[in-house]
């Protein structure tokens, strides 16, 4: 549940979580567009925003929040996403599906990753 190591890649575009036996790797863009912040998720599914134009975004810093989460600070100034261990795991487990949905959502709304 709680990762042992949280590693930010040298180019700051990839986050690796190392657990006891497994490892998960996610891109900064993927984490940014799926930020659990109310700015992105809203307060109900209907309020969810589609974040676009985040290709190539990087993570400036990582802070521990209590014992249950990390806060990621992105270079576009977004800093209100508190990623719980649970949420990070859910994101990684559903990575492909969530990404596909994101891409089709972008298309539907006429938005782009760039």
């Amino acid at each position, binding site marked *: 549940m709680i990762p042992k*190591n*949280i*590693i*930010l890649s040298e180019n700051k575009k990839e986050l690796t979580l190392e657990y006891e036996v497994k490892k998960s790797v996610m891109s900064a863009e993927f984490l940014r567009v799926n930020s659990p912040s109310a700015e992105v998720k809203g307060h109900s599914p209907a309020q969810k925003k589609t974040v676009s134009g985040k290709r190539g975004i990087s993570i400036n810093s*990582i802070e521990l*929040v*209590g014992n*249950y989460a990390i806060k990621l600070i992105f270079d576009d100034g977004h800093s*209100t996403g508190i990623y719980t*261990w649970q949420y990070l795991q859910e994101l990684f487990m559903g990575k492909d599906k969530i990404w596909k949905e994101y891409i089709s959502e972008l298309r539907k709304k006429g938005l782009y990753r760039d």
Partner: protein
Amino acid sequence: MSDVKTLAIEKLKLLNPEYPELIEAIVVANKKIYLSLKTDKTKIDIFTRIKLQIEKELSAIDGIDSVSVSLTSHSESMQSKADTRAVTSGISEVRNIISVASGKGGVGKSTISINLAVAINQLGFSVGLLDADVYGPSIPKLVGDRQKPKKSKAGKILPIQKYNISLMSIGFLVPEDSPMIWRGPMVITAVSQMLNDVEWGQLDYLIVDMPPGTGDVQLTMAQRVPMSGAVIVSTPQDLALIDAIKGIEMFKKVNVPILGMIENMSTFICPNCKNESHIFGFEGAKVEAKNQNVDFLGDIPLEIDLRECSDNGKPIMLSKTDSTVSKKFLEIAKLVKSKIEDNSNSEKPNIIIN
């Protein structure tokens, strides 16, 4: 008293019709008016002037000795900064933070906290105790001390040193009979200050005596304070146990390990006939700990000695060292210590930024 309050607000209105809107809290106690004003941080000069003006005006009220106006800032950037920042700075040299919590009030959480603090100290560790129960601070009474804390050279508050424990409580800072009429965010600010702005120094253990309940304040604290573990106190009574379970759930939600449950007021042995009565039920907390899959740390009986020592301001751990209760506290302290040591390696993740 409320007349003074109304009068004060009227006076503010006369000074400037907008002033009453700035009032965040106003308390009248012991011939003193405590007023806190919402402040715009960018206009601090103006507000300093307003503060002086108000203090002068209100101290003219009959029967008022002094007026203390504090300026509080809640500009958006300030608040979001305070909200997300982990509460760490004043406790950077504290190795382990243990919270003592209960869902229900009045189960003896503060009595357990102070005696546990003394017991851990007797095992050879440096210990601090933070009384986070802002609405009903009991620690000053339990240690029989109400001296005002001093400030260090760096401007930080120095904890009160008593019985070899570093202590801090809102009770050291305000008069005993003045109630804290505060909303949640102010309580959280006060508790953050007692963590950050107090020079705790190097401590092996900091015990946090949590406010009773599982509301906003408790949840925020559990989330933001990097706790090594939580101890849940309950009486064997169903009514208290229901709330204790809520406490366990709350800590589990934010990944604070539950060190175990302590059953307080477990049994009463009549000093005359030596007959044992289970006033609040038999082994309720022990059974519930098993149901909840948490450890049972021990039981403390309902004893006149314990009550008397607490009321006299000298913990039973120090005044009746040979009593059964003191021995039980020592056993509990040993368990807590070994559980913390078992947990300490596996918990915190390393953040590696290349």
